[in-house]
């Protein structure tokens, strides 16, 4: 028998996700409020930026449209990653309650099961809101064919970087099961940091966000290209096209950490 390929895994993922959508629909009021609430959270986020700009015309030289492009692209990448695999954050709970053991006995890869578990469409709210802001900011960009290509690769690579951060940092819970918040500093922290022009931070932060936690590739470098700006830090122009590399590297590193984590895992016995 041939071993199941990625397409098969994707199908299984879809089936499990569909199960959870139907389950969530058992409490329709909560379901709708959660979706609207999530849209609201991120919506108010942007209102915050907008209020900020009522007190100034440029934030470190960037206009509201330019900041909106940074905000929208990072938010969109995070929303895609969060919707698809946000459940991986809960792995500590699965370990504590022994559900991970049950999952291991099933003929579906563990990562697929964990990511699809308690799949929730409520993040559609965030996805919609991010898309609207990004769309609005895009109308101010001076488009060329190459810029369109960079924009598409930015969104895909951005989602990959966040995929990697979610999975990689959730793995800490294989070693200590109640440190879920630690990962938030890198996932949601990464999303927050990318809302602003990176140039407001000191050089060391820029280096860290480029080479250690590569969220600068989620939007900063490609957006510089879309906006036709040169990097205030003076990094090479090649960085502006390097987002896919960052995405793939982050993803690969995360999968490696995941494998190490699963190997390290010993059941709590509960």
């Amino acid at each position: 028998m041939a071993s199941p390929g990625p397409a098969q895994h994707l199908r299984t993922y879809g089936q499990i996700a569909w199960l959870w959508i139907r389950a969530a629909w058992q409490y329709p009021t909560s379901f709708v409020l959660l979706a609207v609430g999530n849209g609201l959270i991120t919506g108010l986020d942007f209102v915050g930026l907008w209020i900020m700009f009522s007190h100034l015309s440029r934030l470190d030289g960037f206009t509201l449209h330019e900041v909106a492009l940074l905000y929208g692209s990072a938010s969109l990448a995070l929303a895609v990653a969060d919707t698809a695999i946000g459940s991986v954050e809960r792995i500590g709970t699965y370990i504590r309650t022994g559900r991970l053991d049950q999952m291991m006995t099933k003929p579906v890869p563990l990562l697929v099961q964990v990511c699809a578990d308690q799949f929730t469409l409520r993040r559609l709210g965030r996805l919609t809101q991010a898309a609207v802001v990004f769309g609005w900011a895009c109308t101010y960009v001076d488009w060329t064919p190459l810029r369109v290509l960079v924009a598409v690769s930015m969104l895909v690579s951005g989602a990959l970087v966040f995929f990697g951060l979610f999975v990689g940092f959730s793995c800490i819970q294989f070693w200590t099961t109640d440190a879920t918040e630690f990962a938030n500093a890198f996932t949601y922290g990464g999303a927050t940091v990318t809302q602003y022009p990176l140039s407001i931070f000191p050089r060391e932060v820029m280096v860290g966000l480029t080479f250690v936690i590569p969220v600068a590739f989620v939007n900063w470098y490609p957006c510089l290209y879309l906006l036709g700006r040169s990097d205030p830090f003076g990094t090479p122009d090649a960085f502006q096209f390097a987002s896919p590399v960052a995405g793939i590297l982050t993803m690969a590193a995360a999968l490696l950490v995941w494998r190490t984590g699963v190997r390290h895992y010993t059941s709590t016995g509960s």
Partner: protein
Amino acid sequence: MLHVAVATRTFRRYATYRAATLSGIFTNSVFGIIYSYAYLALWDANPSAGGYDSQDAVTYVWLGQALLMTIALWGGGTTDDLAERIRSGDVAIDLYRPVGLVGWYLASDLGRAAYHLLTRGFGPTLIGLVVFDISLPGSVLDAGAFAVSLVLAVIVSFAIRFLVASTAFWLLDQSGVKVMSGAFAIFISGMMLPLVLFPGWLGTLANALPWASYVQVPADIWLGKRQGTDLLAALGFQVMWAVVLIAACHGVLRLATRKVVVQGG
């Protein structure tokens, strides 16, 4: 006496999760650093925005991070236990105890808040003091008033979270309402951006709503922006909302116990 016992036990319950606390302090500090640079850029472009200077603004950021868990801005805290007990029907047992439900959970939540203040409050503040030039209260009076204001902030926030949890009597599941109210609280309390920056009617409205007592009022007291009778007015504002909202909690509870059939186990 009973309520003190409830509070100390909740304190200990939260104190069990040390790794969670440490990782939380780390996360608060990361966000504190991010927002500090964002605010510095803002105040660099407009040095007197909202009547704050850049030191006020950075201090405000770290106060916000310290209060985030203490006030339970995202919702949750001990009212989550209540919501779960309503869903499962166990709340019936709470209701025939010879102690008021609101007082019991309030005591418990104050115990939780005390733990979060000592850890998630002081931890990030220390980091803020080391990394950024944040200011301390100008006088003993300000420091004392800040402490009182903090307790009032927790009570106001508790009352709102209690009302949110009570929706489970009708909806069975509080999570939708909780997410909505949390998102709203983050925005309207001044956690996301100081209310002093909110323009026109939005600013007036935000400063009149109970959520202003979460972050903006205690922060302004810490920064010495409220002095003399204005200081009394600030605390009076919080007391007013605390009384009104706790009364609302009692009212909703009476409604719920009269109208709602407790879920059978």
